[in-house]
């Protein structure tokens, strides 16, 4: 039986990567099963949700903008994320370099328990003709193994390994996420200078 939606575990998932690497296409393929040849650039970030009842998980997906000018916004999206997918384009060596930088940044500043996946997108472009491939699968896999990332080559266009990628993350999520700590409040117990000064007067 399908679990109650209210009991589903919410998991924040963020997609990071070079502009044009196909982050939005991957998300759109996964969430809506759609693909557009000309996907508009994401401005800031996009937010989508997708429940996976079989894994008792509801993904809250933040699809970030890849443009460099939005880089400083990224921490807002990966902060508190349970999982991150770092996307690169298999036909662009630069995008792979950028992906490595994202991995470094997440390892440095992100959640230590974050599940990270490396997705080499646009695999359809190198399926018949490997001449356009700039990132060898072995190299990416070795990098992923070295850094403890789940690695898969995907094609949002042909829906190759897209569901598998998200499902693998869902499988790796801890069963019950530790509830987020309360944001707290303004500390109001500081020494009160007003009172201090008045006592000074009376002394």
């Amino acid at each position: 039986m399908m679990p109650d939606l209210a009991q589903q575990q919410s998991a924040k998932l963020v997609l990071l990567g070079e502009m044009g690497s196909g982050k939005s296409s991957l998300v759109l393929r996964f969430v809506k099963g759609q693909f557009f040849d000309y996907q508009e650039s994401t401005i800031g970030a996009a937010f989508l949700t997708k429940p996976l009842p079989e894994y008792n998980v509801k993904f809250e997906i933040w699809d970030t903008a890849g443009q460099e000018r939005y880089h400083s916004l990224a921490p807002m999206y990966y902060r508190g994320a349970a999982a991150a997918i770092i996307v690169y384009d298999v036909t662009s060596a630069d995008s792979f370099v950028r992906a490595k930088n994202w991995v470094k940044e997440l390892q440095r500043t992100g959640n230590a328990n974050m599940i990270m996946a490396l997705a080499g997108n646009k695999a359809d472009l190198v399926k018949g003709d490997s001449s356009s491939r700039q990132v060898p699968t072995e190299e990416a896999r070795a990098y992923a193994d070295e850094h403890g990332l789940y690695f898969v080559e995907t094609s949002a266009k042909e829906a190759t390994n897209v569901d598998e990628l998200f499902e693998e993350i869902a499988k790796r999520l801890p069963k019950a996420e530790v509830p987020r700590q309360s944001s707290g409040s303004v500390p109001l117990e500081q020494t009160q200078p007003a009172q201090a000064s008045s006592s000074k007067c009376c002394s």
Partner: protein
Amino acid sequence: MSTADPEGSRTAFELNAVHQRRDQSRVTSVGVDGDGQRLYIGLDAGVLEEHRLMQTPSGIVARFSARRSVSKKGVVGICLLSAVNRLAALTEDGHVVLCELEQLEPVEIQKLKGATCLAVEVSSRSPSHLAVAVRLGSRKSRVDVYEVFPGAASGHTMREPARLLVEYPVPDEVKDLVWVGQQLVLCLHRTYKVIKADGLRDLLEPSTTPMCTALASANVAVLLWEDTMAVVADADGQAARPPLNLPAKPLRLMQGGMCIVAVCEGGDIHIYDQGTSRLLQRIPFPVNGFMNPDDPSQPQLFHADTPTGACVVLASPRRIWILRPVAPDNQAQQLLRGRSYAAALELAEQCSAKGEPWVPIFYAQAGLLLLQDFRWREAIECLEHCSIEVFQPCELFPLFPAWTEKWAEQVPLKDYWGLHGGLITLEKMVGVGRRYSYGGESPSADPVGISSSEMDRGPGKPSTSARDKHLLEAKQQIASYLLSVRRRAGVRLMDGIDTLIVHLLANVGDAGRLEDFLASPQQVVLLDVEQQLLDMGRPHALALLVSSHRAAARALDLWQRMANSQIKEKPARLGGAVSQAGGDATKVAKYHAAKLLAEEEDVDDELVLRHLVWLRDLAPLRFLQVVKARSLVADAVLGLLPQQPLALRWRYLDHLTTSGQTLKPQHHTELALVLVQAILEAEAQSTTETAQKDSAVVSAVLGSHTYQSKSSTEESSRGDAASSKAANPDVAAVGRYDEPDELPATSEAELHSVLQSHLHKSHLYDVLRVLRAVESTKLYKEQVILYCRLCDHPRALRVLAVTLREVGSAIAYCKQHGGQDGFLTLLEMLLHPGDGQQPMYTEACMVLNAESGNLDPMRVLEALSEDMPLQLANATLARMLRERIHRRRQTRIVAKLHRSRELLSRAEKYELQSTIKGRAVVTDESRCAVCFNPLAGRIFYVYPSSSMVCATCQRGFREGREQEDDSD
């Protein structure tokens, strides 16, 4: 609202000019209470005015209520502290004045100078927290947090209206500050910071001048990140909503209703949905008309909002406007009118979480509209959201008047928001085409594969194929809806709903769901659907229906006719039992008839017996299942079972006897006789087959080509059948219908086993009659059982040992029944088998080996004939002899041992006697060892231990011993 507005746009807010200053004073700040009922205006002369906001037919107007001078300088900021019934006013000279709302009597917060901005924590608790930013220098500030107490009007007796709780130094100028929940977010010169326990923490570094507002209901803040983009984040710096894409740099950001309001450069007010950050509305607003003469780049624009979102106030120095949110249900109606279903559903979902009462009505209305737009699946999803109190499933009856006519007058007539204009028949609806050529969103992916060109014929008629697809999809979806909601409590006209479900499912050829539905409890009106089911070739569904109406006889008749191919089940479009059975309606009929006969207790025996006749011929195994499941009169069932074939008869008799249902000797005897007959027939058949095989071998030798050819054809046809079964999953997954109907073949050995078991276990059969039947046959083991039952052990042994030559069995038989005589009889039988047979010396030796220890050697020797070869019996006889010798020797040893013990006893006795004679000395002082009386002159006894006892005591001992002996 422009036609070029994005999808989902609507009138979410209405802008009303509510106040125009007619005196010389200028507005320098505004405030509004939580309910949006009272407007507070701060003026440049240090005056505070209160106005009541009134709703009139012509719109909202502000009516003057009170006025109070609170400062010598202008009032540049107003914050409402509703929980403590106060207002905080920031004056141009950096002071903060607290006023009670009723009297507006000002009290200045002491020792506070240089205040630049205020923020009130959104909370209903008292005292309230007021944060004040204080400028200390060019790049230095401080944030003070005060506790503000209720005024004297509230019965509060505190001397001071506010008490400083804490102050935080800030190494920059604080431009603005907002409470996000219980945390303070500061807009500094080039950054946003949040006050945490460990000090100030960076939140975000924008690429433009910071500007922010809090969304109190969500505990998040809207932070301007670049001129045309604002992010929505919580106080921990985590994104909470998608960013807002602004058309121009905002002048003010506010919250209102369920929206974010931005007044942007260029003059428009932009309304964004709080949940999705999608632009909902654009309202022209001429900000250029009130530019600041001191700073022409900035307009003189003041604003106020409320945590509840009741309204937003905008003000120029001379005029004030109120932005009031349109009621969400009105927004939803507007969206539905424009067929912006996705946006409308999004809005309803947000309001549903807040428990808005109009949401169920919305879903009913949206569902009905979606039906009219042929968006069947979405329509049904909406209707499923409605509670039964709001939308009764029978309200869909007008779509199918031909099938629901009799309930028409009982259907509640509701127009909800009056947007759908009532339902017409589905046929007409689809025939006419979509009701609206709407400018809203396009239909979602069509599940029935209708091309968009077909869908978008607009108000014109759809093509015939599209029409048929629409009808099919509509009926399927409505049937699904009715099936899912009919179980809910409070559903009216259940009989009509169930009847409609049958019509719909039969009409779309969904035999699978139709049969499942009819097999479950329902209230279908049989008369209404009976003919349709027959006409549409659904006799099985009809049989299930009549069976559920306790008309078992009718159901069984239908299945009988199906099984005899008198009525046909038409191929279904979706599922169905016949489809599961690979198209074989007979299998289905047999299965269900047998199930009903076996399980339905209300079916009388006469009806069962009547239908067992055809079941016997078409499905003997199911016949057997039925008769085993029911307690029928055995003779009546046996009357249905002919003598040939015997399998069914003996199985039924076997069931009767083993289950203890019959104690009649005739049934027990008949079972034995029928089994005997079955075995004999099987033997005969096996003989014939062997002969045929031999003949086939000869033929094969003579013409191998022909034989091989035939064989390969058979193989090939078997292969084809297998591959066809694998290719067709329906055939592969026939499931319950795949169970065999025919009785499984029983081997001769199994028949023997059943007969022997019966002969062993039953004591009710006529032994002699059965024996007569088997005597002249090769059923030797059965003969043994019968002879044994007659205690004719020699004959039983003869069959075992001589006929069957199973000496082991004969020995076992002897051990169980024969004893020594039996063994000797067996030995005799083996040595003298008679009928010209040679003596079976080896077997005889086996008998001797098995039982030699217990047999009398003399009788054995007498039994052994002189002709018996000695070498065969040598070992056995030698052993018997050795054993006899051993036994004799053992006896002699025992005798000798007894003799030796006797001699020892005698020796001991004599020794004692000699001891007593030599040692007895009695003096005057000698006394009896028992009574201690002197022994002198008296008769006494001496024990071997030299103890002397008087005669009296000795007599007492002796008598006592004798008594003990007697008792032993």
